[in-house]
């Protein structure tokens, strides 16, 4: 018999950690989504597709900035000492992923603004002709435009990676303590962004391309989740227990049904049929992918907080 009793009952900490509510999963999802959008925009710019006025890369930077700002607002809502938020920007802590993230969030905006200026949406070019002039001048410098594309891809990658490292660096929560988490969140972000862009793109060839890309990302995501779980199951006792929280514990229904089933496998089947012209493209699969990506962050953040280091001899 092992019996452990404690007099501690601190708010947000006991009986199991619950410091992060909806704000953090929403922010992590948005971070991944915008990261994916930046990578797609950067790729289209690099490939010279920006010359086409109907290219989706014309609207993505603006959408990205709006969505990311909403995510940062969610992050701000989570802070307990809000008036001191500016303290983040008086220092850079190399060992702190959160410090990296704070600065990454600052540098992605100029990159998105630069990609916005390459091909300004019609509404802005009509209302503010001076923006259009900047755009025309920018387009004359082909290498600068290509570099903006590359920078968007790199910073997008960094943003997506950081959202995973943020959690995996917190070694006290065994479920998060995996070096696969950055890859999982990056691939999931790319997949959600592909699904999102698939819905907003006007050009049929772009929609087709992104549906195919999304299928690739979804297949990769299944492998990454598999490796993430295998990594846990072949680690220490606390890590095995953490994996079981997802596989057969209280978060198993959400993980199997919403993350894997409705979030990955079923939309993958629908999109595979669509790209092979067996059925028509509908927004159903992309919406499932996006909601699945959001639920993935929820499950990982909540289940991770539920797991903790305990004396291994206390474990069953």
């Amino acid at each position: 018999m092992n019996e452990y009793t404690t007099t501690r009952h601190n708010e947000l900490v006991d009986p199991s950690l619950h410091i992060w509510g909806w704000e953090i999963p929403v922010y992590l999802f948005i971070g991944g989504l915008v990261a994916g959008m930046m990578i797609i925009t950067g790729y289209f710019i690099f490939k010279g597709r920006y010359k086409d006025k109907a290219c989706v890369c014309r609207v993505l930077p603006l959408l990205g900035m709006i969505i990311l700002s909403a995510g940062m607002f969610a992050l701000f809502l989570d802070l307990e000492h809000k008036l001191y938020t500016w303290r983040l920007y008086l220092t850079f802590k190399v060992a702190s992923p959160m410090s990296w993230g704070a600065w990454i969030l600052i540098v992605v905006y100029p990159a998105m603004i630069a990609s916005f200026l390459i091909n300004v949406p019609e509404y802005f070019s009509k209302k503010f002709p001076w923006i259009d002039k900047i755009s025309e001048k920018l387009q004359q410098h082909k290498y600068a435009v290509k570099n903006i594309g590359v920078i968007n891809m790199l910073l997008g990658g960094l943003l997506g990676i950081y959202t995973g490292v943020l959690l995996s660096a917190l070694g006290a929560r065994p479920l998060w303590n995996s070096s696969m988490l950055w890859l999982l969140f990056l691939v999931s972000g790319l997949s959600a962004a592909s699904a999102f862009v698939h819905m907003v793109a006007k050009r049929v060839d772009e929609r087709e391309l992104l549906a195919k890309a999304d299928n690739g990302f979804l297949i990769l995501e299944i492998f990454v989740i598999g490796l993430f779980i295998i990594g846990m199951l072949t680690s220490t006792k606390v890590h095995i227990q953490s994996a079981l929280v997802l596989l057969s514990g209280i978060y198993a229904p959400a993980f199997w049904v919403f993350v894997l089933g409705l979030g990955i496998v079923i939309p993958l089947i629908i999109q595979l049929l669509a790209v092979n012209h067996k059925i028509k493209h509908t927004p159903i699969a992309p919406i499932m992918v996006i909601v699945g990506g959001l639920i993935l962050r929820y499950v990982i953040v909540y289940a991770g907080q539920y797991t903790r280091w305990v004396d291994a001899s206390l474990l069953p």
Partner: protein
Amino acid sequence: MMRFGMVIDTKKCVGCMDCVVACKTENDVPEKLNRDWIVQDVRGKNPDLHMEIRTERCNHCDNPPCVYCCPTGASHVHDLGGIVLVTHDLCIGCKACLASCPYDARFVHPEGYADKCTFCVHRVEKGLDPACVSVCPTHCMYFGDFDDPNSQVSKLLASRKNHSLIPEAGTKPQIFYLV
């Protein structure tokens, strides 16, 4: 250099919670929150049972993840004996340090900053013991410098069987329990 830490004799601790009350009074810890607490750990199979009563708090780790993950430098290691502290007006309340602590020793103060045991640094600076140590009626708690081989805590560790909490988490905790 000094390295402050604690040694707690579980053979003497009766779980009276005087240390808990002393801490709350000394540090004005808000209602429903605790910087230290009592644990009863019973193991074995009847009739061969072993019970350990111990007082727990922040372990002021030598490899403190809460300090590394802090984005503003609010969580830091004090020059005096490696005590891990939080500068209140640098803390943004992101709670990364709460998530990084394998002992769940931190909490959010109602004013918004992360809070935890300070080893009563304001007392230690004056050469006094932390409040919890000074009030313990069974004298089961010892505070001192592990870097000094002649300190009482070093001698106790050298002479008695002991353990720390979850050493496998790799944080090098600086509180040891005599068994």
